[in-house]
C-alpha cells in the first residue's frame, strides 16, 4: 500500500553530457557556481570551504606540534607561535566548525523535509559569501596586520582575545581589527543561514511531515540555529564594543578609565559556551541519521532525543562562567556554575543511552560512516566526563589553562565533531556526487585517525595533570614533559597522514569511485528518494509522507511505520 508518493527516481534527470574544456566553458561553469542560489550547490561550497580551512588549520596545528616536539626548540619564534595558535583556534572554530554546520544543513534540510530549496535562496547565497569574505579577511591579516607600516602579522591574542590585551595600547597595528571584523562578518553570515534553516524546517515541510515526523537531523539543526542566533550575537556585540574602543577611543574594556576587562570575559563566554554546543549539535544530528541506518533499527526514543537537544540548548545558556572559575567569583557564583554545568550531563547522558539502545540488538554494518560514529560515541562519553571533572571548581583551579583543558575540548571538537563530520561525508558523499567513497581508503583513514587521535589526546591529559600550561611556546628539559610531548606530536603527525588519505579519497573517488545509485545504504529519509546527485528541483512531485521513515514505508508496504505512530 504505497500511501506515500515519490517521483520516479532518475526519470527526469538530464543525461550527463561530456564536458569539453574551453575557456568559455570554464568561465560559464565558474559563473554558475558564483551566482548560484541552489541550496545543494551552496551546501557543497560550504563543505569545500570547511574542508579547505580544516587543512589550513591542520597545517597550523602541525606547526605547533613541531615546535613542541622537544624542549627548547627554535622552530618558531615566540611571536609567530602566538599567531599560529591564535589562528589555529579561530580558524577551527569559526571557519571550519561554523561552516560544516551549514554545509550539511543546506544540502540536507530541504531534501529531508521534501522541499525544493531553502526558504530564502538569495539570503542563503548572501550568507555563504559573507562567511567566505570573512574568512579571507581573517587570513588577509597575515599581509595587512600592521597596515602599511611593517611586516605582516596575524592576531596573536588567542581565540578568546581577552582584554585589555586587545586594546590599542597593548596591540597596536590592525591584527585584532581583522580578527574582530572578520568574525562580525562571518557572524552575519551565520545569522542569515540560521534564519534560513529555521524558516525552511518550520515552513516548507511537505505534506504529512509533522514536527514529530521530522528527521532528527532536521530537529537538531533547528535547535542549533536557534542557539546560534542567541550565541553569535553576544560576540558580535562585544566585538562592536572592541572596535569602538580601538577606533573611536571608547573605554568599554579600558581599565585605566574605569572600564572592565572582566566584562569582556563574561561576554566572550556567554557566546563561547553555547557556541561549543552550536558546534556539537549538528554532529549529533549526523550521528542520529547514521547510527539507525547502520544498525538497521529505528532510532530509540525519538521524542527523548528531540527533547534532550532542546534541554541541552537551554542549559548551555546558563553555564558560561565555568570558564572563569580562576578569575574569581563569590561562592554562590561558583556553586551555581558548578551545578548548572553538571546539569548538562543529564540530557547528554540521555542521548548517549539512546544511541547505544539504538545499536543494541541491531544488525550492525561497520561501514566507514558507522565506524566513525561508533568511535564518536566512546570519545564523546570520555570528553563529557573530563568536562564534569573540570566543572568541579577546586579541580578547575588546579587544571585550568593546563593541557588537561586542551585535551578535554579536543576530545569533543575532534573526537566527537570531526569524527561525525567524517561520518557524514562518507555517508552523504554518494548522494552529492553519485559515487561511493572508497571503503578501503576509508578504513585506512579511520584507523589511522583513531590511533593518531588517541596517541595525541589521551596523552595530553597526562601533560595537563603534570602541570604543563597551555599556550607556552617551549619548555625546559627538566620539567619531565618531554617524552609526553613527543608522543603527542607523533599522534598529530599520524592524524595528518589520515587526513591526507581522506583528501585523496575525496578527489580520487570523485572520478573513479563506484557508481552509487539512489540509495546505496538502504536508508529511510527523503533525500535517498531522489537521484544521486539530485536534480536542481529535488523532487519532480511534492512528496507526501505518513511516518518518520517514508522510504521504509515504500520498501515495506506490508509493515509500514505509520501503523505504530
Amino acid at each position, binding site marked *: 500500500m504505497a500511501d506515500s508518493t515519490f517521483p520516479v527516481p532518475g526519470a527526469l534527470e538530464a543525461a550527463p553530457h561530456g564536458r569539453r574544456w574551453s575557456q568559455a566553458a570554464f568561465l560559464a561553469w565558474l559563473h554558475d557556481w558564483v551566482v548560484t542560489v541552489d541550496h545543494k550547490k551552496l551546501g557543497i561550497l560550504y563543505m569545500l570551504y570547511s574542508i579547505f580551512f580544516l587543512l589550513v588549520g591542520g597545517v597550523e596545528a602541525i606547526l605547533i606540534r613541531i615546535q613542541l616536539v622537544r624542549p627548547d626548540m627554535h622552530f618558531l619564534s615566540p611571536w609567530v607561535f602566538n599567531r599560529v595558535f591564535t589562528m589555529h583556534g579561530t580558524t577551527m572554530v569559526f571557519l571550519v566548525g561554523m561552516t560544516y554546520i551549514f554545509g550539511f544543513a543546506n544540502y540536507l534540510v530541504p531534501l529531508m523535509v521534501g522541499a525544493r530549496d531553502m526558504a530564502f535562496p538569495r539570503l542563503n547565497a548572501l550568507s555563504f559569501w559573507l562567511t567566505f569574505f570573512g574568512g579571507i579577511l581573517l587570513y588577509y591579516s597575515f599581509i595587512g596586520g600592521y597596515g602599511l607600516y611593517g611586516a605582516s602579522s596575524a592576531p596573536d591574542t588567542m581565540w578568546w582575545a581577552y582584554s585589555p590585551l586587545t586594546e590599542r595600547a597593548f596591540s597596536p597595528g590592525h591584527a585584532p581589527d581583522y580578527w574582530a571584523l572578520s568574525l562580525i562578518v562571518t557572524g552575519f553570515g551565520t545569522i542569515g543561514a540560521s534564519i534560513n534553516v529555521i524558516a525552511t524546517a518550520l515552513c516548507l515541510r511537505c505534506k504529512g511531515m509533522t514536527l514529530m515526523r521530522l528527521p532528527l537531523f532536521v530537529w537538531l539543526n533547528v535547535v542549533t540555529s536557534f542557539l546560534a542566533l542567541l550565541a*553569535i550575537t*553576544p560576540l558580535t556585540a562585544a566585538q562592536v564594543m572592541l572596535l569602538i574602543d580601538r577606533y573611536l577611543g571608547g573605554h568599554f574594556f579600558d581599565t585605566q578609565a574605569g572600564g572592565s576587562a572582566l566584562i569582556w570575559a563574561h561576554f566572550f563566554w556567554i557566546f563561547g559556551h553555547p557556541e561549543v554546543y552550536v558546534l556539537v549539535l549538528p554532529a549529533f544530528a549526523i550521528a542520529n541519521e547514521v547510527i539507525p541506518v547502520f544498525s538497521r533499527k529505528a532510532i530509540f526514543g525519538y521524542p527523548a532525543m528531540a527533547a534532550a537537544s532542546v534541554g541541552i540548548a537551554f542549559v548551555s545558556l546558563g553555564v558560561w562562567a565555568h570558564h572563569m572559575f580562576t578569575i574569581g567569583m563569590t561562592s554562590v557564583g561558583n556553586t551555581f556554575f558548578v551545578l548548572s554545568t553538571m546539569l548538562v550531563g543529564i540530557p547528554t547522558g540521555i542521548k548517549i543511552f539512546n544511541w547505544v539502545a539504538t545499536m543494541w540488538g541491531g544488525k550492525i554494518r561497520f561501514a566507514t560512516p558507522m565506524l566513525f560514529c561508533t568511535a564518536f560515541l566512546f570519545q564523546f562519553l570520555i570528553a563529557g566526563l573530563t568536562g564534569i571533572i573540570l566543572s568541579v571548581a577546586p579541580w578547575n583551579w588546579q587544571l585550568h589553562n593546563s593541557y588537561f583543558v586542551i585535551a578535554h575540548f579536543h576530545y569533543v571538537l575532534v573526537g566527537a565533531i570531526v569524527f561525525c563530520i567524517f561520518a557524514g561525508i562518507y555517508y552523504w558523499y554518494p548522494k552529492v556526487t553519485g559515487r561511493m567513497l572508497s571503503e578501503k581508503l576509508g578504513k585506512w583513514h579511520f584507523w589511522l585517525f583513531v590511533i593518531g587521535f588517541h596517541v595525541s589526546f589521551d596523552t595530553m591529559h597526562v601533560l595537563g595533570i603534570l602541570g604543563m600550561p597551555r599556550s607556552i611556546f617551549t619548555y625546559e628539559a627538566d620539567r619531565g614533559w618531554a617524552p609526553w610531548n613527543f608522543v603527542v606530536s607523533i599522534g598529530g603527525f599520524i592524524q595528518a597522514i589520515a587526513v591526507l588519505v581522506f583528501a585523496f579519497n575525496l578527489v580520487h573517488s570523485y572520478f573513479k569511485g563506484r557508481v552509487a545509485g539512489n540509495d546505496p545504504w538502504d536508508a529511510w529519509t527523503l533525500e535517498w528518494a531522489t537521484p544521486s546527485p539530485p536534480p536542481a528541483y529535488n523532487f519532480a512531485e511534492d512528496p507526501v509522507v505518513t511516518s518518520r521513515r517514508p522510504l521504509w514505508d515504500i520498501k515495506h508496504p506490508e509493515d509500514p511505520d505509520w501503523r505504530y505512530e
Partner: protein
Amino acid sequence: MSTLAVAQAEREQAWVQPSKGRVAMFCLILAESTIFTIFVVAYVYNIGKSLYGPTPQILEVPIWNSIFLLSSSLTIWLAERAVEHGRIKSFGLWWALTFVLGAIFLVGTGIEWHKLIYEDGLTISTNLFGTTFYSLVGLHASHVILGLIALFTVLMFTVTGHVRKEHADRIQVLALYWHFVDAVWIVVFTVVYVIGR
C-alpha cells in the same frame, strides 16, 4: 482497509504551516534582542563607573521624542489594517506619517547629541559614560535608520502605485521590525533616562 481510510483522512486535512516571512522576522528579532541585551548589560554594569568627565545628570529626558516614536507604532498598525482591507490610499497616508514620526525622532536625537557634544563636551571618547551612552543610544538609532530606509522603500512603491492588497502579509512582516525598534526604545529609555540618571 480502515487504516487506509485513516491515512486518507489525514491527507485531506488542510496542510498549514507558519508564514516563512514571519518566522524569519521573529528569528531576526530574537538575534537583535540579544545584541541589545549585551549593550544594555554593558550600560547598566558601567553606571557610575566613570572616573572623570560629565555624568548622566546632564541628560534631559526626551519626552516628546519618545512620544513621537512610540506613536509611530500606532500609525503603522493603522497602515497595516488599511492595506489588509485594500484601502491603499489610507495605507499610504498612515505609512507616510509613520515615516515622518520616525524621522522626527531621529532629528530629535541629533539635536540632543549636538547639545551634549558642543555644550556639555561629552563625546564617545570622553569617558566611560560617553562610551556606553553613545553606543547604546546609537545602536538603537542605527536601527531606526535601517527601519526608515525600509519604510521609505515601501513608501516609494506605494507612491508609484505598486502596493496592492496582496502585499499585506509582507508589509506586516516589515511592520514587525518597526514595532521591535519601538519596543526596544522603551527599554533603552528606561535604562538610560530613568535608572541611569
